[in-house]
Structures are given as C-alpha cells and as structure tokens.
C-alpha cells in the first residue's frame, strides 16, 4: 500500500529516534521511572487478565458452541478475591507513590536556593548572586537546587519533564520544589497550568552545566548587585530600618539572624521564620504579630513587586548584624516633618495611626510609636 510521503517521513523519524521516555537528567528520575514501570506492569497484568477472560469466554461460550446458558448466582469467594487483590496492589502503589512524593517535595536543608517568579507569560529566575534570567534557568549539576517560586498573577506550573518534577506556582504564596541535575544538557521548561492567551509560549530552557561552567556563567552574567544588596537598598528606602533598627527600644523586632529562628507570636503560637513567613510579614504584618510588639506596621501590599519582596527576604536571610542598618538609619533619620514631606503623595493609612496601650504588653510604648511613623514611599521598582 502507498503511504503519503509526509506520513512516511514522520514514521521514519519516529522509529529512528522514538523517545518513549524523557531523558533521565535528575537524581529523582530513575526512581520515578522505576515506579512508572511498576505501575505499567500492574496495568498490563490487569489488562491481560480482563482480555483473556472476555475473549476466552466469548470464544468458548459463544452461542454456536454453547446454545444453553447455565445460570450462576455468584461466588463470595471470587468477589473477595477480586476485591482484595486489587486493593492490595493499589495499596502498594499508594505507599510507593507517597514515599516518592515526599522525596520530591521535602526540600533538603543545604540546597542552593534560586527564586522563580512566574507571570503571564514568562519565567523570571533570580540567582542569589544577582543573576537575572528570563525563560531560562542555568543550574550546576550534582548540586541540590531548591526553587522558591511565586506567581505575580494567575496559577502557573513549573515543570521540567527531564527532571520529573513539577510544582504549581501560586499567586500570593511561595511554593518550593527541589532537584539535583545529574547530566549536563538543555532541557524543556514548561508552564503546565493553563494561564491564559500565551500559555503555550510560557516555556523556557533549563541549562544544566558542570559546576565550573556554572561558575563561569554566573560571574559572566551577574547584574552587579546581589539580591541581598538590592534588598538592603530597598530596606533603607522603604524606611524599614526606622523601626527594625535592632535597637533595644525599637518599635519593630530585631531582624538580625531572625531567619530560621522560632518566633513567638502575639497569640501565643510559634512559627519558624522562613521565606513564606517573612513575605507574609511584609504584606500582611498584622496577621502574625511577633509577641511584644504592637501591630503598627503598615502593609506594603501593592507597593513592592514580587522581585522586591524576594530581595528583601534574601537580605533579611543574610542579615547577621544590625551595624549597617543603624548606619543607614542615622543617615535617613529625620524629624517628623521632613519624614512626612519626604513621603508626601503616598499617604498610607498608617501615617496618622496610634496604637492602643492595651495591646502588645511590654512594647516600647505609644508615646514614641506615635512620633515618627515609618515613611512610606510610592511603589518601589528597581
């Protein structure tokens, strides 16, 4: 028979390099594929069982051969068999799958952290060293890499088939995933959650390089200032340091080495100060107030871009001493009048806000808290 040349070309191409599996390029992929083969095996067994039964019976007991049907009520034993055996198999799948799941979503402690911001319709990656990439991600192999991801608008989903990992990128909340690339090369990066018009254009490439190459690339493509440095600049320009000066009488908690520590909240509960907590504390300060402080911090919702927040979080992460904070503070410390003037045009509800004595037992008192409100400049964009 005659196959159309186009069809033929496809078939040839497919048969020559027919990929049934994406490349195994991460530490997790072999485990994923092993589980996949197991599941296929189970399905094959089940499928073959059904096929044999259906076809076998259809041939043996077709009307020509067996004109008279014998009525059979049923068999509890058989029912039990094909209830228990599938159940057992499914339970194995469940346990295996759960182990794999936690292996993938349980981030290692000492992984190198890269921030990813998804927006319609691009991926923005930010390396701690200040390297910014769009729709591509350079990573070293044989190194655990953790991605801290957030979306600026709608749900996206960060998927690297070659690494067998995928995680939803959620608006308003950090989500994390980690991987360890094992083979150098360039791999697909997909947004797999439908996110609007150019959903299918929200793709990129993962470039896995040897550590030295990565170093070369990093030093070559840095934007000058690291995330932490940007964060410090932002920290000062937002006037955070006027409250979070680290001084004993400061209105805001001391931020030095706060990252990763256990905090007691005003409502008595404890939280670990991780990225998500820090971000939340900047945007919705009063949802989780640190014990001993009044909920006087204004919200920075809509004033700091996600990148800015990442800079701040990264800065606070690496903040070991308040020395530089106070340095910048003395420079920017002004009487109320100028402070108001400097931040005129962007009046925030916090400017004329007085906390009550009733709250925040042991905080440094309303008298001071009323005097200088934190100056709030307009939207920060770097």
């Amino acid at each position: 028979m005659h196959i159309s040349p186009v069809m033929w070309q496809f078939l040839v191409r497919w048969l020559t390099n027919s990929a049934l599996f994406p490349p195994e390029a991460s530490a997790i992929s072999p485990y994923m594929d092993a589980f996949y083969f197991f599941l296929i095996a189970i399905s094959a067994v089940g499928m073959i069982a059904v096929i044999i039964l259906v076809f076998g019976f259809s041939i043996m007991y077709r009307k020509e051969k067996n004109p008279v049907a014998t009525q059979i009520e049923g068999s509890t034993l058989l029912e039990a068999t094909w209830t228990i055996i599938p159940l057992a198999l499914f339970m194995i799948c469940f346990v295996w799958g759960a182990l794999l799941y936690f292996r993938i979503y349980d981030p290692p402690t000492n992984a190198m952290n890269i921030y990813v911001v998804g927006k319609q319709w691009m991926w923005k990656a930010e390396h701690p060293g200040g390297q910014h990439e769009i729709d591509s991600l350079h990573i070293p192999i044989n190194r655990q890499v953790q991605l801290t991801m957030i979306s600026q608008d709608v749900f996206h989903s960060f998927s690297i088939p070659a690494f067998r990992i995928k995680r939803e990128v959620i608006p308003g909340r950090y989500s994390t995933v980690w991987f360890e690339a094992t083979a150098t090369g360039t791999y697909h990066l997909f947004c797999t959650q439908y996110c609007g018009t150019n959903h299918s254009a929200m793709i990129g490439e993962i470039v896995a390089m040897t550590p030295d190459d990565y170093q070369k690339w990093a030093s070559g493509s840095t934007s000058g200032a690291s995330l932490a440095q940007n964060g410090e600049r932002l920290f000062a320009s937002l006037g955070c340091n006027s409250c979070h000066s680290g001084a004993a009488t400061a209105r805001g908690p001391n931020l030095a080495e706060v990252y990763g520590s256990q905090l007691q909240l005003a409502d008595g509960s404890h939280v670990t100060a991780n990225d998500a907590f820090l971000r939340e504390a900047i945007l919705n300060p009063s949802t989780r107030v640190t014990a001993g402080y009044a909920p006087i911090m204004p919200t920075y919702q809509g004033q700091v871009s996600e990148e800015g927040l990442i800079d701040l979080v990264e800065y606070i992460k690496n903040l070991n001493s308040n020395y530089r904070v106070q340095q910048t503070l003395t420079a920017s410390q002004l009487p109320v009048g100028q402070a108001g003037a400097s931040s005129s045009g962007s009046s925030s509800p916090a400017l004329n806000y007085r906390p009550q004595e009733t709250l925040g037992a042991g905080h440094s008192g309303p008298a001071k808290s009323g005097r200088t409100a934190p100056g709030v400049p307009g939207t920060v964009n770097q």
Partner: protein
Amino acid sequence: MDSQAIVTGHADPHEGHEEHPAYLRHHFVTVEQQRETASFGMWLFLLTEIMFFGGLFMAYLLYRNWYYDAFVASSNTLGIGLGTTNTGVLILSSFTMAMGVYSAETRNRKGLLTSLSLTICLGLVFLGIKTIEYHDKYTEHHIPGASFSVEDFVHPTDKRDVPLAPDMAQHAQLFFFLYFAMTGMHALHMIIGISILFVLLYQAYHGAYIDGHTSTIDNFGLYWHFVDIVWIFLFPLLYLISRHPLK
C-alpha cells in the same frame, strides 16, 4: 402484543377504596404514595439547598480563622438586638406556618387563611428589619467595594473593639461580603417564599387545600422551616460568637 404479559392481578395494595379523589395523579396508586412522594421530593430539594449554603458556610469558617481579628471587629458592628428580634420573628413565622399546615389537615379554612396571612406578615417584618440593618451598613460605609471605609476598624468607635492594623482592617471587607452574601441569599429565599405564600393564600381563599389534599401546603411548610433553620445558624455565626474575642 403481550403488552401486559406479567400482570397477574390488580396492583392496588388495599382493595378497600376504589374511588380515587380528583387530586390523585394518574401515575400514582394511592393518595398515601402521592403524599409521601411529594414530601420526599421536597426533602431532596432541601438537601440541595443545604449544600448550596454549605459553600458559603465553608468560606465563612475559613476566613474567620484566617482573619480572626477583622471578623471579630466587623461582627461587633452588627446590631445584636435587631438580630435577636429577627430570629424571634422568624421562629414565630415558622410556628404560624406549622399552624397553617395543621389547619389544612383539619380542613379548617379560616385557620388556614389566618395562619397563612400571619406568616406573610411576619416574613415581611423580618425583611423590613433586614432592610434597616442593610441601611445602617450603607450609612456606615460597611458595604464592601468602592465605598468601603476601614475607618471604623482602625479607629474603633465601639469600646469593645480593639483597633486593627490597616491591612487587617481591609480584610473586614471579606466579612461584610460574606455577611451580605449569606443574609442576601437567605433574604432571597424569604422573598421567594413570601411570593409563593401569596399564591397559596389566594388559592386557599378560593377554597383549596381543605379537601384533604395538603401536599402543597406541607411542602411549602418544609421550605419555610428550612429557611428558618438557615437563619438559626446564620444568627450565631454572624452576630453572636465573636462578642468576646480570644486575646
């Protein structure tokens, strides 16, 4: 044609009453069956109503836990007096409705008319009070959306309230949205109910429902009581449980 092959006898379980009342639909065998069928169907419809409100209750519970302070503060701006009065009014209307069912069953036309009209009045009173509450919210700029002002929450006028930080005060909007969504959905059910009541009243005035065929009244009663139950849960959730915030 073997159109009734397996019919081996007449199906009517109790051969006693062959004479069928006029209101027995052709596809029912007995009046009992018809009545039970009708009320069962009504109950299933009420189940869907439960799940319909269920979504709103779900959202309310979630956000009350997330933005506890905002919800407490905003809940305290609701008038507990009006709320309680309304609850009483609604329970009374439920009672009058039940009496309506009773008088229909006892074929008492006068009683039916009075209880139906009483129910209508009480329902209208409820809606009236609700309107007053809504109007207060409007004057206080507590309607979520453009005209919403957080002033009352950052500078509380009410002694019971603690001041909220601006960002938390913004979340008061969520409370008020859910407040309007839930009470509004409930009020919508009331309005529908009252309009049906007018029809029933008209028909009863012309002598319906006292011939022993009370299914319609029964089922409407079920609907009315259900609306009452929804309010019985809305009342504490919205008005009561936040009077004493946990410090």
